[in-house]
């Protein structure tokens, strides 16, 4: 024992004598959420100071959280995908596909007057379409070894084409009134349903990511797929599940979107993938896989939205928002590099 601790001292050098506090400080600086949470607080403080009494209101919060809800739900799935060192470009298109599939069912089953049972069935069909679509992309990635960027670019095209083929090129009418008034515009205890569902989904999948084998294998595969394979993880099957999950969550976002806007909004989502990926990266997930948390993604989704809301209240031309979001994405990736250097010991 004494020899081995001598060896330790030799190996670790002065670092071994550094205080535990410094270790903790270093660890939290290296953690993704610390940065993003700091940025979040600064944003809130700055905009609150710039527009006292306007920015930090429950109306701003509700509006922001409602329009952000589908993005948050898609970002949950995207987090899992990015953690495996993959990327899913198809998210906004899977959203549209799921909405279209559900609404096509509604159109031929009562339209605006569809009953509760029909609404549930249509929603399940939409979710199933999203999951199946994502699963097929997973097969392309895991079994055909097509790089995720290309597999989901391919999927994006397929989803868009299918959506237009099903609808004939224009948004479908007749979203069921009951769907719009409940999920879309309704609320529970004063909180809109879309917010409740998106927050609940974040919580559930955050717990799955942090505390279950599914989450652990996701990190392991993103970190070192060969190592995972050698210890008996079925990497291919897990990847298919992860992409199917991303598709399923895009499907859920699609149903929420359908209910909230009372339309299939076919042409409104070409840049959703950019928004969602930006959110996940701002949230501290590494594009190289293996690193990131659901809490980070949760905060990351709201940073661009807060920026937009704040700039809007200040009366700044809204197109600045795209520029600022782009710059924030760049900063987030740069910080990822800094963190990487902090973690690797010299």
């Amino acid at each position, binding site marked *: 024992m004494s020899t081995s601790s001598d060896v330790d001292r030799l*190996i*670790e050098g002065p670092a071994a004598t550094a205080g535990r506090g410094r270790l903790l400080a270093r660890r939290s600086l290296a953690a993704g959420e610390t940065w993003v949470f700091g940025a979040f607080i600064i944003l809130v403080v700055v905009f609150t100071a710039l527009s006292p009494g306007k920015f930090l209101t429950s109306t701003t919060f509700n509006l922001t959280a409602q329009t952000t809800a589908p993005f948050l739900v898609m970002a949950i799935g995207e987090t899992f995908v990015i953690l495996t060192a993959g990327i899913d470009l198809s998210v906004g298109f899977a959203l549209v596909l799921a909405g279209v599939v559900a609404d096509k069912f509604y159109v031929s089953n009562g339209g605006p007057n569809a009953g509760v049972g029909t609404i549930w069935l249509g929603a399940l069909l939409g979710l199933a379409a999203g999951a199946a679509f994502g699963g097929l992309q997973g097969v392309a990635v895991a079994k055909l070894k097509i790089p995720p960027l290309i597999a989901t670019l391919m999927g994006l095209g397929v989803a868009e084409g299918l959506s237009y083929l099903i609808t004939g090129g224009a948004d479908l009418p007749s979203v069921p009134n009951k769907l719009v008034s409940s999920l879309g515009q309704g609320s529970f205890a004063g909180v809109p349903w879309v917010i409740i569902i998106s927050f609940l989904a974040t919580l559930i999948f955050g717990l799955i990511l942090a505390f*279950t084998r599914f989450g652990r294998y996701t990190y392991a595969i993103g970190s070192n797929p060969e190592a995972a394979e050698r210890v008996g993880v079925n990497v291919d099957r897990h990847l298919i599940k992860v992409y199917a999950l991303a598709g399923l969550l895009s499907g859920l976002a699609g149903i929420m979107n359908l209910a909230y806007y009372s339309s299939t909004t076919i042409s409104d989502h070409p840049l959703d993938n950019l928004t969602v990926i930006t959110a996940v990266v701002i949230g501290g997930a590494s594009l190289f896989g293996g690193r990131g948390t659901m809490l980070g993604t949760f905060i990351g989704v709201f940073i661009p939205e807060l920026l937009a809301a704040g700039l809007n209240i200040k009366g700044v031309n809204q197109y600045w928002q795209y520029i600022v979001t782009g710059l924030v994405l760049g900063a987030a990736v740069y910080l990822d590099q800094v963190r990487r250097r902090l*973690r690797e010991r010299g």
Partner: protein
Amino acid sequence: MPDSAIPLLEASGLVKHYGSVLALDGASFTAYPGEVVALIGDNGAGKSTLVKILSGAGRPDKGQILVEGKPINMTSPLDARGYGIETVYQDLALAPDLDAAANLHLGRELYWFRPLHILNKPAMRKRAVEAFADLGVNLKDVTAPVITLSGGQRQSVAVARAVAYASKIIFMDEPTAALGVVQRKRVLENIRRVRDRGIAVVLISHNMPEVLSVADRVEVLRLGRRVARFQASEATVEQLVGAMTGALTTEDAEEAGETTK
């Protein structure tokens, strides 16, 4: 080690083709309980192929593998694990973003609530701390991502993982190749500790002085066959090199079934 004891692992007549390349040409290998046996050979002698087959990562075209005298059939590293055989790969096969406790249990997680696969992290941490203490490795923090550890510490994590599950044999593929002098010393200490627990350690190495200092026995592979066996205490570096290069042959070569070139 006494030749009269039943070998823990005995492979004989292993043949393996990769396309037109004959990687193993009737190779044999033997390991006894509680010994460190070094497997040496020049590049292309078939060491990696042999280790792959013996650790379940590859299947021989021909030949027989006995574990404690009973023939076995392995199709994956998981099968090998079932026989108490673990491998420390040269690249360590760790997930750098996961901590030491997670890596130690990767693929063999402990559950707090099994039906939902909810992990029991405290139990895994506790077992990791015990595993490192068992090995005499002083790892300050089993919750630090492996990437933040030094090369020697990472190696210890991989060894501790193998030791925690290996009941019979551990293969170590070039465990010291990427390490500095001090870490190298640590690894050799690890190897001796593992042997002292009654586990056979198969050391694949290029470093002759290192082989002679840590191994009890040495088996030499050349052109896909075992060509010599030595007691490390009686062997010299010159003899090992002679056997590796073909200047010295003590067995097998003339009796092997297939012919080379």
